[in-house]
């Protein structure tokens, strides 16, 4: 069953002295979570993603807009009638109850016709426990579990109601780096096995990119871009998305287009057919810089970091917005760490131009071969 948000807006009354004003946590947000997919809601902290999640699960009511689960409008339903399961950032496991009691808790809330026999409850709880592989922990209390185990219990508790939608708030942020990698695969696996439409919130782009079928990027309550992770990465709609996705991050230059050529400073570096003359931001992915003895872009070499599979070249360029820029190259390329200068050719499909004012993308027809960029 798919989840659809339609022009969702959430305003909070501002606190403190300027109590008359309102804060827009979410503004005119519309997107869809397709049936059975794992979707990552991505954005920097404070961008309204948790508010969005809370509105979907019913803990908060939107100021405007509708929320649909399939064909049904659930905007005004309270959480328990929506059929959602939620995993909280700190898991919110009841410390005084055992793992089993925690998983049973949602089932015991059911009333009337929905009420299950206690045998059926236990069967369902066991099923959920098996799904996340915590059968042997059922008699323990949450504080006797590791972070990863607590996470699984929280997921089991969310799944035991057989929800139509599963929501996860920063599911990995409380785990250490090693567990994070393992757990995110676990989540992916459980989602695929159950086929439940799942939405999770994260500020970590790598996390979102690696397991999501789709990602939705937000900034300051506004939708920036949505799509398949790789596609969003390869084709960012604006400077924010380009900067937010990718490690190491994209290199941003103040540049200009003159006569369908991209200039960094006074030197032309790339043919950009179809782009009008203007000042632009030019974003170049680290893997878009290819060392080449006669390349058009000259940089001052700062440091060469060998990282095994890849080599990372840190250098400086006057037009670069950051202190240094970074190029990722395969270790087959040889760069002499002692030399003062390094020259690069650009791969046009890794170069993005953005409007200087509103930071939206400026399209250009990429030339067939990046090496032809400048003559």
């Amino acid at each position: 069953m798919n989840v659809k948000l339609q022009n969702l807006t959430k305003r909070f009354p501002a606190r403190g002295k300027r109590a008359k004003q309102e804060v827009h946590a979410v503004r005119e947000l519309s997107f869809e979570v397709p049936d059975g997919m794992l979707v990552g809601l991505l954005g920097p902290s404070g961008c309204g993603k948790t508010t969005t999640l809370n509105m979907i699960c019913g803990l908060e009511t939107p100021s405007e807009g509708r929320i649909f689960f399939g064909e049904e409008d659930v905007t005004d339903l309270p959480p328990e009638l929506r059929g959602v399961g939620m995993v909280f950032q700190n898991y919110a496991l009841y410390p005084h109850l055992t793992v089993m009691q925690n998983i049973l808790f949602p089932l015991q809330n059911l009333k009337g016709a929905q009420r299950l026999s206690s045998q059926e409850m236990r069967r369902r709880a066991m099923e959920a426990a098996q799904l996340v592989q915590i059968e042997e922990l059922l008699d323990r209390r949450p504080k006797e579990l590791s972070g990863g185990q607590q996470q699984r219990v929280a997921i089991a508790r969310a799944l035991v109601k057989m929800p139509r939608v599963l929501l996860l708030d920063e599911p990995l942020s409380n785990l250490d780096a090693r567990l994070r990698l393992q757990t995110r695969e676990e989540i992916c696996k459980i989602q695929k096995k159950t086929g439940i439409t799942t939405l999770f919130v994260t500020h970590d782009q790598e996390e979102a990119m690696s397991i999501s079928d789709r990602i939705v990027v937000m900034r300051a309550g506004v939708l920036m871009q949505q799509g398949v992770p790789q596609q969003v990465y390869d084709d960012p709609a604006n400077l924010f998305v380009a900067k937010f996705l990718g490690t190491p991050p994209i290199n941003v230059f103040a540049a200009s287009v003159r006569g369908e050529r991209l200039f960094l400073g006074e030197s032309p570096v790339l043919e950009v057919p179809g782009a009008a003359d203007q000042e632009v931001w030019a974003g170049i992915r680290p893997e878009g810089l290819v060392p080449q003895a006669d390349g058009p872009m000259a940089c001052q070499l700062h440091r060469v970091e060998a990282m095994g599979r890849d080599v990372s070249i840190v250098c400086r360029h006057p037009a670069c917005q950051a202190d240094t820029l970074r190029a990722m190259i395969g270790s087959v390329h040889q760069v002499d760490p002692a030399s003062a200068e390094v020259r690069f050719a650009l791969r046009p499909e890794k170069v993005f131009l953005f409007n200087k004012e509103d930071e939206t993308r400026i399209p250009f027809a990429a030339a067939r071969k990046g090496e032809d960029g400048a003559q």
Partner: protein
Amino acid sequence: MIRNDEFAARQRGMQRRRRAGKLVTYLGLSVWAVVVLFPFYWMVLTSLKSYGAYNAEHTPVFFTLAPTWENYRQAFTAVPLGNYLLNTLIFSVLTTAAMVVVSTLAAYAFARLRFRGRNLLFGLFLSMMMIPSELVVITNFVTITNWDLRNSFLGLILPSITSVFYIYLLKENFEQVPDELYRAAKVDGTSDLKYLWKVMIPICRPTLITITILKLIECWNSYIWPRLITDDQAYYLVSNGIQQIREEGFGRENVPAMMAAVVSISVPLILLFLTFRKKIMQGASQGGIKG
């Protein structure tokens, strides 16, 4: 699934119930607020009624149209209320000051200085918290009597100084100051006393202020020990003074003057409370049990 209009009706019902619940909550809370405030209102009100007017009321009246300060004049002249207040002030300030000094030094020794038997001694200190004052007051009474310190400030103050709980609270607070600061100060050649004075005390000032205020309140309200140790009116504290007024009164049963005295001894504390409301409530919740 439930249909939407059906649900909207349910939602409205729920909202109405919730609003009713809020109303009941506010009502209940207000009732208790009145129960708490009423005695205060009544004592101020009565203290402003004239003696004649009060005694003429066969059924109590909830307001007065002719407030008078006469009762306050009575309270301060017919009985040495001013003297009681002054005594209490002296007793409270001296005891609190001595407590702060003694506790700070002890807490510093426990928190920062390394010496043999520190943990053992601290454990001993903690176990002293369990000794009820009712047990030791008997011997203290005999001791102070034997030292001929009855009816003296020294006799009043000495047994009231130490508080194991405050030493414990301060020690915990001192220990939160990072060790590096102490080492840095040592490298700079700072003496322990100077470090305590220049670094620890400024950093831990909030806690020090809290325990000072709590101790002041405790002293101001103390009754049992002063009652045992003083029988000379010249050394009475307010609690004993008020008891004295109650039993012997103003020569006759003079309720308005009595209430004027009650107001006079309550006002300083209430002012102190309203000024340091946050600190007092926070400190009290840390374990200050009214003793």
